[in-house]
């Protein structure tokens, strides 16, 4: 089973806050059949207690997720934001940082997602690649790039 899907990548999206951004992406994951109808609320609730904004440099990334009980089949959903949206900082929850890329993880099987997680962190730590991802304006381009990275990851 593939981990990245053309209908779950969204370039150049615009939202007024993190709540709206998370709600949109989590609902897409639910509607595509990868998560239960509790997933969106679980992601939002988790983000409040354990925020997922990562201070990665010029282009910050958020990696929202929820417990696996809300997930049916593991998948990623990725979007780039036209204007950065403030997310709370994982390491410093009281402060916020402007996030430009959201990589939402739906993990059905708590053990054994290491290779997927490592690929995500590889992207997060590669400022050149983050810059490249921000340039895509179509889902096809964004999907093609991410698919290169994740194609050998099967779950």
């Amino acid at each position, binding site marked *: 089973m593939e981990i990245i899907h053309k209908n779950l990548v969204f370039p150049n999206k615009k939202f007024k806050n993190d709540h709206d951004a998370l709600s949109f992406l989590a609902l897409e994951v639910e509607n595509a059949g990868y998560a239960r109808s509790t997933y969106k609320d679980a992601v939002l609730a*988790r983000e409040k*207690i*354990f925020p997922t904004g*990562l*201070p*990665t*440099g010029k282009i910050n990334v958020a*990696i929202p*997720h*929820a*417990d*696996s009980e809300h997930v049916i089949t593991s998948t990623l959903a990725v979007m780039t934001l036209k204007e950065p949206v403030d997310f709370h900082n*994982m*390491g*410093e*929850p009281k402060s916020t940082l402007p996030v430009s890329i959201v990589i939402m*993880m739906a*993990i059905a099987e*708590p053990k054994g*997602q*290491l290779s997927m*997680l*490592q690929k995500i*962190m590889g992207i*997060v*730590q590669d400022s050149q690649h983050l810059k490249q991802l921000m340039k895509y304006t179509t889902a096809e381009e964004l999907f093609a790039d991410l698919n290169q990275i994740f194609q050998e990851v099967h779950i």
Partner: protein
Amino acid sequence: MKKILVACGSGIATSTVARNKLEEELKKRGFGSDKVSFSQTSIPQLRSQANDYDLIVTTAKYTEDVGTPVINGLAFLTGINMDNTVDQVISALHLQ
């Protein structure tokens, strides 16, 4: 044998990454599985398990005093200042 407990919000995602990276970095510096062992947990379960470990590494902020030293491991996700965090781990565990 020094025991390290790695924790994140759910005990699934970011603690897996941090644990793997720390394990790799310690191995590079000569501290392999004969010297350090790893376990993972979630932040809500941290307090009840803390006593069994020499060091706790969390990816989320954690400021409670649980009697065991706690180091923030966000660097293992972002890659920023990671060497510095590995130094902190080595000195907290008195590894040599």
